[in-house]
């Protein structure tokens, strides 16, 4: 059976190779358990059973079971790119998701929760809001980039037409709603303080609704009886009322509790409208019959879009990247949907048989189990024994995992411990408790599997656990320990090295005697943080957090022999490839690749998911690395090369966006094109980007350093003129990438 499992595993690895085409040192998969990450929109199926949330930062869509208010899965697809808005067909069979990042619309089959297609069309330009007609035949997509509305024929899933009336009636179309009788689509023109009226029969703009109270209108909702539309005024802190029969603004609702109102939703029974106030973190409750604000609900943080179940019983609101629920009968915030799985991941370890990875979710007191064959989160180990789980170590025989539990900072009574996990059953079977544990962070196990060493940051010691008895049998204490962080043991099991960021040193522990036999001090040490020893036992690599470097210790002489500089900020953690040829250093937004033969930085791995990566583990065959990312709550799967890679050329940036901003002064209007982009997923990091107005790259507009916001304001543009921008990335050696370009008409 085990042989079959191993065969299956390697079959999967082989399949992954062929499927991804495996570019060395590139992220080939991102494991996410659906943790909401910058969610933008919510859509509920017509049967009221399921809710879908596009995650702008994770490029996937979370699926929530409404009956249990729990996250049940994700829809993942490589064509998702900054998914923004979602709409579901009235028959509940299909969902359409606008991809703001790559100008497309993804199609999700609700029955299988799989992406069945992607609609691409040259007219899509930063597609934003989407609405589907009540008869389910047509979807309308607003394009922020070219001030237009695209029309999708749902029968053929093709974008067929484009409603465009630049500058007069569609200006930064930020939201769209369709009347229940399917005759009119209303488009909110944020930058024109108006609402465009699209006649659905002819797909033409037949007029605009304007009123003095429109002020940076943001969102629109229509009552179920089709009589009235409500528009939030983000800057005016009010809600405008449109009489649909006359297509005129008949008034507005003002209330002292409106503060930067963002989204609006009307309950399907037509009784109540809910307005999210991002300015004061509340949701206002509006009586639709009287157009009066009857109260507000607090407890949110940055409330955004709202969706209400078909039975009008529950409202769901995006709040602080989570999904809040409101009981609409009592208008009380009833809770937040907690997503299981990877959450603020801190550490990762892989079993010796390469079948399973364990990830500690430090701030959520649980562990995720990743099935490496499928690269999915297969299980969550929830147990009250967990208390801010940090470092993980697995015994060489693969039977037991040990997880350091560090109690909260400044806890009056500390409950630090080490949790014991049975790998066969994925259960927490007990803890190792000892009064000497004090902010335990990292664990290392001797190659013979008999002893575990645990660094105690706050009492400057290392605890010794006897693995057969799971008891603390001793403590290594030494005056040279200062805030010990990381620990590594030589492959021969003779020596342990402990990094002391508190006094810029590395302590040497003789395993046979459990005594500190020496301390390595070197001027190059600057907050030494993580430590890793090569598999041949010849060198130890120590990251210096403060001066962004790596010190190399010759283990034979216990002296620092070399220093690798030029690491990015936040470079703290280090992992060595099984063949000792490559060193990986996890930085703030990338994984730096170091050639271990020449000890030089030869590239970096960049991917949206690699955001504050805190740990990396590599399969024993060295083909794939798994990186735990704290900020994105993901695990990036990186295809690694088994030998020194050829440096990849610098890649062009991606996801270029252009937005026309009309900065209106009293006597003139400054027309500005806001050009933005994101870094390439692969290749060396860019030092800076150059933005040009011509294909020959001669009309330089601006140079933008990679650390800053990746955007350029091109001011004083002519009205009704098409501009094309070209962006190239430039690396530290002056190598220039190919250019990307995009056009926009002002």
């Amino acid at each position, binding site marked *: 059976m085990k042989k079959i499992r191993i065969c299956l595993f390697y079959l999967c690895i082989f399949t992954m190779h062929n499927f991804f085409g495996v570019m060395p040192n590139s992220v080939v998969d991102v494991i996410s358990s659906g943790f909401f990450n910058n969610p933008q929109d919510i859509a509920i199926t017509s049967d009221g059973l399921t809710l879908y949330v596009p995650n702008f930062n994770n490029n996937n869509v979370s699926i929530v079971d409404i009956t249990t208010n729990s996250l049940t899965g994700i829809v993942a697809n490589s064509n998702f790119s900054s998914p923004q808005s979602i709409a579901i067909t009235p028959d509940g069979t299909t969902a359409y998701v606008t991809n703001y990042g790559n100008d497309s619309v993804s199609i999700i089959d609700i029955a299988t929760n799989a992406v069945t297609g992607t609609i691409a069309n040259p007219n899509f330009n930063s597609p934003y809001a989407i609405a589907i007609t009540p008869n389910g035949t047509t979807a309308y997509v607003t394009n922020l980039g070219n001030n237009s509305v695209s029309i999708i024929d749902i029968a053929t899933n093709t974008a067929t037409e484009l409603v465009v009336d630049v500058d007069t009636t569609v200006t930064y179309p930020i939201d769209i709603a369709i009347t229940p009788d399917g005759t009119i689509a209303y488009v909110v023109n944020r930058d024109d303080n108006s609402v465009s009226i699209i006649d659905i029969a002819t797909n033409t703009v037949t007029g605009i609704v304007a009123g003095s109270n429109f002020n940076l209108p943001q969102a629109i909702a229509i009552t179920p009886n089709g009589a009235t539309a409500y528009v939030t005024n983000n800057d005016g802190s009010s809600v405008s009322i449109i009489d649909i029969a006359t297509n005129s603004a008949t008034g507005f609702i003002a209330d002292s509790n409106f503060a930067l109102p963002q989204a609006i939703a009307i309950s399907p029974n037509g009784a109540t409208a809910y307005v999210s106030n991002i300015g004061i973190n509340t949701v206002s409750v509006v009586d639709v019959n009287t157009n009066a604000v009857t109260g507000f609900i607090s407890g949110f943080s940055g409330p955004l879009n709202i969706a209400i179940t078909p039975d009008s019983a529950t409202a769901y609101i995006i709040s602080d990247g989570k999904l809040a629920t409101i009981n609409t009968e009592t208008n009380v915030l009833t809770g937040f949907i907690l997503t299981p799985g990877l959450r603020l991941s801190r550490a990762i370890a892989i079993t010796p048989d390469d079948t399973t990875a364990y990830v500690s979710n430090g701030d959520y007191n649980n562990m995720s189990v990743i099935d490496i064959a499928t690269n999915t989160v297969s299980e969550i180990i929830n147990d009250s024994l967990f208390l801010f789980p940090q470092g993980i170590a697995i015994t060489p025989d693969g039977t037991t995992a040990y997880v350091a539990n560090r109690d909260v900072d400044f806890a009056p009574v500390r409950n630090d411990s080490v949790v014991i996990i049975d790998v066969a059953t994925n259960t927490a079977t007990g803890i190792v408790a000892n009064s000497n544990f004090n902010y335990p962070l990292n664990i290392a196990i001797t190659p013979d599997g008999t002893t575990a060493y645990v660094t105690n940051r706050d009492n400057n010691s290392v605890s010794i656990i006897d693995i057969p008895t799971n008891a603390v049998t001793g403590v290594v204490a030494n005056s040279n320990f200062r805030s010990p962080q990381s620990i590594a043991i030589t492959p021969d099991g003779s020596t342990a090295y402990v990094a002391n960021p508190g006094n810029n040193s590395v302590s040497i522990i003789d395993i046979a005697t459990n005594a500190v036999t020496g301390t390595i001090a070197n001027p190059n040490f600057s907050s030494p943080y993580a430590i890793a020893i090569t598999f041949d036992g010849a060198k130890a690599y120590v990251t210096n957090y403060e001066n962004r470097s790596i010190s190399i210790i010759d283990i034979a002489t216990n002296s620092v022999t070399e220093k690798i500089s030029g690491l990015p900020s936040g470079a703290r953690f280090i992992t060595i490839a099984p063949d000792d040829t490559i060193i990986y250093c996890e930085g703030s937004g990338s994984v730096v690749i170091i050639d271990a033969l020449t000890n030089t930085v030869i590239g970096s791995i960049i991917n949206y998911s690699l955001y504050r990566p805190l740990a990396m583990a590599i399969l024993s065959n060295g083909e794939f690395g798994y990186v735990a990312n704290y900020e994105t709550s993901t695990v990036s799967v990186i295809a690694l090369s088994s030998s020194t890679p050829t440096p990849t050329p610098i890649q062009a940036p991606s996801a270029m966006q252009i937005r026309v901003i009309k900065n209106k002064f009293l006597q*003139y209007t*400054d027309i500005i094109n806001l050009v933005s982009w994101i870094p390439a997923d692969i290749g060396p990091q860019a030092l800076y980007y150059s933005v040009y107005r011509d294909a020959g790259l001669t009309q330089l507009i601006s140079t933008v350093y990679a650390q800053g916001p990746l955007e350029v304001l091109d*001011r004083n543009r*002519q009205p009704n003129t098409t501009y094309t921008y070209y962006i190239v990335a430039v690396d530290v050696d002056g190598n220039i990438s190919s250019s990307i370009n995009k056009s926009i008409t002002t």
Partner: protein
Amino acid sequence: MKNFNKKITALIFASFLLITSQVQALKMPDYDRDILFEGKAAVFVPTNDTLKDIYNNCADFGLEVTGRMFDRLYAFSGVDFLRKNSYTTELASPTQLSIVNLALGAKYFLPFSHGDFYFGVGIAPTFLCTDDRTPEPLHQTQWSCGGIAKTGLIVDLPRSLFLDFYFNYSFVKSNSYSNSPPQLQETHLDGYLFGIGFGYRFH
């Protein structure tokens, strides 16, 4: 900016001289002399969307002289000044608005036991100055002419003093050209003035 302030001061003095000479020249022997000097403070409430979005309400200060011409028909002349710093709505670019509003016209007085009710119309030559940051400084000035309609209630106080509770509506339209790139944009300085004046009445 110093030169601009000097220009405003000169304008105010010139207006006073003009008004005073007009009133002195009236000398209508058939009617009792009735000349009203007042200083005013008001809130300018713009009705134009652009003006309102950027600057919203502004404080306005002015001087006005009113003199009887025929029976209940009076001539008036005044000068108003307002200045406000604000930011554009889209990019929050700093901008400063300065307006000197001259007014010349006629009022019809309806006396009652303790004062007068009046309404009037006139022309409003207006000097507009904006200083914008785009982010480079951009200073633009222009003269244009509009109209003004006003109504108010004068309450007589002892010692020939009086209070004037007034409401004005003025409208001024002009075309502005931006420097770079050249674009035509209509500028409307339309709005209401709600204010109070305090003055001395020669009669």
